């Protein structure tokens, strides 16, 4: 008897409940993923802030800013042999190590340099270009993965941490101006006297002090995000993470680099590409630790003469995996997000007519270029 009065759930009711629960989970899951990405992004921007603050601390100690290529810190170890350049090519990031709690690593590097000097070039120095050679030493300092240089949102950067005998990667490019540039040699060296960027060649421009940052530290970019090339598959074909060779790059307007774009975020077919972007925190050349604010974020990067080696002309674009742009940190330590649609001014203009770096006037590359150049009364605001 009681069976007829007991009220159960019908099949339809059950299905409706399951459907509702399904929809709710469907709504919730992406939100959880977004929250995780937001946390990674926060860590990423915090790293950038720490780098900008490290520059501030470097300045209070040394009364100058670090140089990208041939910083005077390294000249004390010079003995006038071939391998001197292994020290001169060390990056701003290397000089900032003591200011991001990596002092022991810096001590290792300087003790090797001192040994090199004491032996008058008799011992071999670890090379910043080779991952597995520690010279005459047991420890290769440049293979260490440093979390402060790696953005948690960049999968390739995170994956690199588990690699053995690879040079430590880097996600933050220091500001080398608003145009294609090279670190050393020929016209590039002449051009670096014009200080298009904050971190310049020490040989050409000498010391950089706050007095050179005429636009003010809150209006001048210190670092911008760059993607790390996925070297595990030796794949330099993704234009956000690779570098493509463009002949005569230094005689072309920045827009010419956009021609390397192919379909689906890859470089166009038939180009010579390199996986040098963000590949080594230790070295100052070929997009490993620098960026130029000419093309908007997430544009391709290009290199000219010499392909991927030291002294090559490069146009390294900022890029990130955050979607729609990249973060930059100002020299005062504030971090802003720069959209892909930022005003880049006249990207068809090769400033100065022949070679960008020789140009002395205010940036013609819009808000983006003005934020990168430290002088010229371009105190534009990004907001």
């Amino acid at each position, binding site marked *: 008897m009681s069976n007829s009065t007991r009220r159960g759930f019908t099949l339809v009711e059950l299905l409706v409940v399951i459907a509702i629960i399904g929809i709710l989970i469907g709504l919730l899951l992406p939100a959880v993923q977004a929250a995780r990405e937001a946390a990674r992004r926060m860590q990423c921007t915090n790293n950038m802030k720490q780098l900008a603050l490290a520059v501030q601390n470097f300045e209070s100690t040394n009364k100058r800013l670090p140089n990208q290529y041939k910083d005077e810190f390294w000249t004390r170890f010079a003995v006038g042999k*071939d*391998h001197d*350049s*292994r020290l001169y090519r060390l990056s701003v990031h290397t000089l900032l190590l003591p200011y991001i709690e990596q002092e022991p690593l810096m001590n290792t590097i300087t003790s090797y340099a001192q040994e090199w000097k004491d032996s008058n070039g008799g011992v071999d120095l670890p090379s910043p*270009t080779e991952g597995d050679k520690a010279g005459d030493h047991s420890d290769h300092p440049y293979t260490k993965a440093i979390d402060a240089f790696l953005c948690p949102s960049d999968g390739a950067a995170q994956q690199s941490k588990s690699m053995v005998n690879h040079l430590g990667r880097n996600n933050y490019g220091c500001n080398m101006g608003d145009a294609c540039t*090279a670190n*050393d*040699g*020929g*016209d590039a060296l002449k051009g670096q006297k014009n200080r298009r960027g904050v971190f310049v060649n020490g040989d050409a421009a000498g010391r950089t002090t706050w007095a050179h940052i005429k636009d003010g530290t809150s209006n001048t970019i210190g670092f911008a995000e760059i993607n790390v090339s996925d070297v595990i598959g030796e794949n330099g074909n993704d234009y956000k993470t690779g570098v493509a060779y463009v*002949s*005569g790059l230094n*005689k*072309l*307007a920045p*827009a*010419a680099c*956009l*021609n390397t*774009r*192919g*379909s689906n975020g890859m470089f*166009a077919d038939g180009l010579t590409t390199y996986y040098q972007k963000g590949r080594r925190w230790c070295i100052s050349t070929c997009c490993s630790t620098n960026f130029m604010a000419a*093309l*908007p974020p997430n*544009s391709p990067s290009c290199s*000219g*003469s*010499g*392909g991927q*080696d*030291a*002294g*090559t*002309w490069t146009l390294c674009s900022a890029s990130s995996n955050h979607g*729609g742009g990249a973060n930059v940190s100002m020299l005062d330590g504030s971090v802003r997000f720069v959209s*892909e*649609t930022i005003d*880049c001014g*006249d*990207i*068809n203009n090769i400033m100065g*007519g022949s070679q960008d770096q020789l140009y002395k006037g205010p940036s013609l590359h819009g808000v983006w270029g003005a934020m990168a150049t430290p002088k010229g009364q371009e105190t534009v605001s990004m907001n």
Partner: protein
Amino acid sequence: MNKRFLFAVALIAIVAVLPSCGKKTLKTSPVTGTITLDGAPLADANIFFTPSGGTGDQAVGKSDASGVYKIQTPQGAPGAGTTPGEYVVTITCQKVVKEAEKNAEGEIVSDEVTESAIPKKYGDPKQSGLTASVVKGDNKIDFELSSK
């Protein structure tokens, strides 16, 4: 019944509004054509479109082996063209005459030397004498250069 009808209308309205929440994209028109130098196709030439009127967006393209180019803006997809308007066009074509030389440490001793394969005036917006007007829809604009 009336309530159910209102609910359906509200649903349709929400679905209709959703797509317009996406980011704004440029309304570009494809631009293609052939670049020739003294009648022969000019390969590997960079072509720059700079707006000269009130409308338009900077765009750039590169010619292939048969001299055919397609242009693109930084925000648009490759080959998507640019927005309608009047443009000044500049063309540069750098050919490598000497490769870069490097030392044992892989540093550049002497830079790569490149020369312009076309008269330099074509690369100067004030002297190029090349213009284009991009209209809505497909555009086919050819450029005939002369080495004299």
